[in-house]
């Protein structure tokens, strides 16, 4: 099964939960950090690196000498990434989504395939778990193209039958949806504060159309109020686990340790969470009537 650990906003302890789940997972599991703008799962899992490669996207490269300024390219581009400006054919590489439309329609061969670096893909092993992450090039504005390549690369380093835990980007925008859309279950990590409840509400709304089972983990439970719980009740989404606020957790985090490893009480909580998640994927067997 595939589990995406997401959160409506950053700083809720999403990576703490993802790292802990990977640490206690009872079956063979792979770890994938798709928070490519600010990957940090590796800071807790301390994987051994096996390899890395740079990832690129195909974008048009202009050859003005062939251009007749017919504008077929700019008419098809939804992203203002290729334009005829007076007598100048201009490509804005960072705006391009790599759809290839302009290359296909240009009748003059005035656009050739070039490339833009998206970032890098790094893989290795964290204990027994295959580990993979992406890291966007600084200044790269789009995450999903790199995320797709990280996902595709996973099949080369992990057997398809093992489970997968995904550290998704925070928020509810395109990259977050892209990270959770292949999961069987979405775990939303939140805090019992008004901000936590607000962002959790946004996450429910953004991910509900995907039609996947969702569950909530309340981190730093006990510090705030009950708006998060009321929201979950209203939306009929289960609170799967509560991780209390504890100094030992903050210390383990600061030292780059897996919290479920460093703090025994958390280990028990995360193990119970893992069992619940596995049950969400495998619906209870139907009763068989003998007779």
């Amino acid at each position, binding site marked *: 099964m595939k589990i995406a650990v997401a959160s409506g*906003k*950053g700083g809720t302890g999403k990576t703490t939960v993802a790292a802990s789940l990977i640490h206690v997972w009872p079956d063979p599991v792979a770890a994938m950090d798709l928070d490519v703008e600010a990957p940090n799962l590796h800071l807790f899992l301390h994987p051994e*690196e096996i390899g890395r490669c740079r990832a690129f996207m195909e974008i048009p490269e202009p050859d003005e000498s062939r251009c007749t300024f017919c504008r077929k390219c700019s008419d098809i581009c939804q992203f203002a990434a290729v334009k005829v*400006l007076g007598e100048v054919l201009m490509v804005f590489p960072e705006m391009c989504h790599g759809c290839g439309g302009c290359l296909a329609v240009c009748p003059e061969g005035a656009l050739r395939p070039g490339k833009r670096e998206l970032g890098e893909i790094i893989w290795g092993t964290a204990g027994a778990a295959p580990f993979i992450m992406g890291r966007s090039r600084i200044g790269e504005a789009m995450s999903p193209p790199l995320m797709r390549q990280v996902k595709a690369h996973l099949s080369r380093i992990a057997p398809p039958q093992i489970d997968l835990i995904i550290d998704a980007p925070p928020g509810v*925008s395109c990259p977050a949806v892209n990270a959770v859309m292949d999961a069987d279950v979405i775990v939303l990590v939140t805090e019992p504060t008004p901000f936590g409840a607000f962002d959790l509400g946004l996450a429910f709304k953004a991910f509900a159309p995907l039609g996947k089972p969702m569950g909530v983990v309340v981190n730093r439970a006990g510090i705030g109020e009950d708006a998060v719980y009321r929201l979950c009740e209203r939306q009929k989404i289960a609170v799967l686990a509560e991780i209390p606020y504890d100094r030992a957790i903050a210390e383990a985090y600061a030292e780059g340790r897996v919290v479920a490893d460093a703090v025994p009480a958390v280990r028990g909580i995360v193990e119970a969470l893992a069992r619940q998640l596995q049950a969400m994927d495998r619906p209870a067997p139907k009763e068989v009537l003998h007779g």
Partner: protein
Amino acid sequence: MSKIAISCDEPSLDAQVDPRFGRAAGFLIVDPDTMTFTYQENGQAQAMARGAGIQAAETIIRAGARAVLTGYVGPKAFQALSAGGVQIVQDLANLTVRQAVERYKAGDIALAQEPNSQAHGGGGRPGAGMGGGGRGGGGGRWR
């Protein structure tokens, strides 16, 4: 003199200059010699999540403007306007279109050499830095 584009939200010389370039409601395309004008809507650019400035630049270049008078121009729009040979006058505010054109004609303005507004790409990271620890700045290279 060639035509000038001024960002504003209604087809009148007495309209206020709209400080936004890419997200302006539209542009008055003025012939400074005769003060006759046409109005060019900017709805296509306004509808875009990103690239509004580039789209607006294309719009006014196609309308034949060789100069633009506005408030804030971002880096990509600046690049597009410069490529199209359009002079850029920015930082205008609290002026009517007529006043801006008169100042341009009198040479009482500075042509911009660089954009005065930063790109506002695909939206920032939600809640980044709120106790996240180790976030941002591409921090924490893997060994």
